[in-house]
């Protein structure tokens, strides 16, 4: 059986590698320098399936810094990188309502 990461990947449009930071679960993105950043603006973006697969394999090889790495869609608008779907928007911005006890609640 082929491992999920070895399967032929089809992507439509730009993607990034994302995961959660081990110590606190914060959302992080794979950067150009093979590190991780909590800022989507610093994420390494690719539109190539082969590149994305290689980046994911590399990111998953060491699971000390980040866990559960996967490929997520983004929208690139000039120099701005935005999450590509609702799930990823929520991962960036948090729940879509005011948290209990917050001033906005």
């Amino acid at each position: 059986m082929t491992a999920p990461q070895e399967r032929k990947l089809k992507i439509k449009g730009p993607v990034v590698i994302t995961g959660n930071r081990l110590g606190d679960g914060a959302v992080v993105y794979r950067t150009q320098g093979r590190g991780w950043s909590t800022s989507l603006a610093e994420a390494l973006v690719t539109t190539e399936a082969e590149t994305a697969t290689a980046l994911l394999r590399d990111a998953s090889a060491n699971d000390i810094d980040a866990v559960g790495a996967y490929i997520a869609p983004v929208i690139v608008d000039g120099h701005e990188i935005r999450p590509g779907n609702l799930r990823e928007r929520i991962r960036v911005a948090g729940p879509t309502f005011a948290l209990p006890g917050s001033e906005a609640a």
Partner: protein
Amino acid sequence: MYIYDEFDRALLADRVAEFRDQIARRLSGALTEDEFKPLRLMNGVYLQLHAYMLRVAIPYGSLSSDQLRTLAHVARRYDRGYGHFTTRQNIQFNWIKLQDMPEVLATLAQSHLHAMQTSGNCIRNVTSDQWAGVAPDEVEDPRVYAEILRQHSTMHPEFSFLPRKFKIAVTAAAQDRAAIRIHDIGLRLHRNAAGEAGFEVVVGGGLGRTPFIGKTIKSFLHKRDLLSYVEAILRVYNLYGRRDNIYKARIKILVHDLGAEAFAAAVENEWRAIRDGALVLDDAVIADIASRFRYPEYDILPDESEALAAERSSDRAFDLWYANSVAPHRMPGYAIVTLSLKPVGAPPGDATAEQMDAIADLADRYSSREIRVGHEQNLVLPHVRQRDLPALFRALDAIGVATANVGLVSDIIACPGLDYCSLANARSIPIAQELTRRFRNLEAARDIGRLHINISGCINACGHHHVGHIGILGVEKNGEEFYQITLGGRADEQAGLGTLLGPAVPYEQVADVIEDVVSAYVALRARPDELFIDTVRRVGVEPFKERVYAAH
């Protein structure tokens, strides 16, 4: 309250030390994520969309005021100041750091709280009636048997690696407030013709991808045989349950595939070999466990309902709350009070640290230091003197937990949904929030009558949508949130699954459609006191479908 003994305290301390070491090894890289994940799940730690979540067990929904203060402390010190009470009588903290987890669990353990059996393929936290021990309609306190099952199942090697998670609920009342028919095993304590108390055993209930209402495989099981019979069920499941396909691994699939009669026969066969062995619960064992439950020393009080009539007639808000949130108690002069965690516009089941502290103080003053958690995601003060109700109402109202909507249209069960959960396809909480705004008029809600709306953000059905009078299931279509709506489900003693109303509707239309469903009910009901669920049963979903889809 159940009082833990030295064995329990030592067990919790050992468990905290063990997990502390496992976390340290994970953070140092000595354990990989693949190695660590099953260990953290055994301690109730999940990784959600944007943080770790810790699920803390509240066995059979009973909390002391000190335990609630500890939960408030954890929320304030280690989380973002709130917690979420779940449909399994647990509490979830959504933002706890992995590196803080050992301290959190050590803090919880000091109050005899823990996160064992809140995750993994084991026997999960055993749930019960939130009115257990105080309900006038119960045979005896079902928590005694929930506690026996807890003690037997905790770290039991034979039941720590089941094909899939395993949920048990126990009730002893005529009215099923514990939703036992949607559990892997549901136990209903009742009396037989001879007046003896024993269990009806229901097996194979469950929701999720393939929902089933449980089947009764034994109508009367003597209390002495509880452990051996449950163990026989688990052995049959352990032996024949599927491990090759996670979607077919729950006992409900096995019961369905074998048929209830064949399953029951297999259990009987297994049971014959063990029923007279070490698992027999003799009266002394039951009495010993029962003796560790502490009950208040109730005063001899007169029934105060007439005295409260003046207060009710002069204060409409109190009157609405009294009629909605106060239930009869088995002791004269006392009442059971439900605290709504469903205020208008708020996430269902959430409570802030300040609310938890305040409720703990009110429990000290008015409820013999005890609080209960119900599967509908509300709290209960189980031992309130009727004469204290006006003062208690004002205090509860001041902290936002006296909305008179218990059991009404805005008392919505909702899972965390896509706002937190990595399994979800769609959001649940914002749908619930909008519906509470649409149905904020309590007089109108009272006219609508009992109506349960249950919302799940994915097919795993943590929001019990299949058994909502109105069920709402979030699905994803081409990257957009859509919602399937079912009518006519119920989780009580007449449990049944809802029927699909029609095509899924987009996020923006859900609240409008639900308003139309409720309007259709008001138009279709045979008389003002015919409940929603009875109207659906009488007329089916077609008349609703015609009215709702004609409008959209």
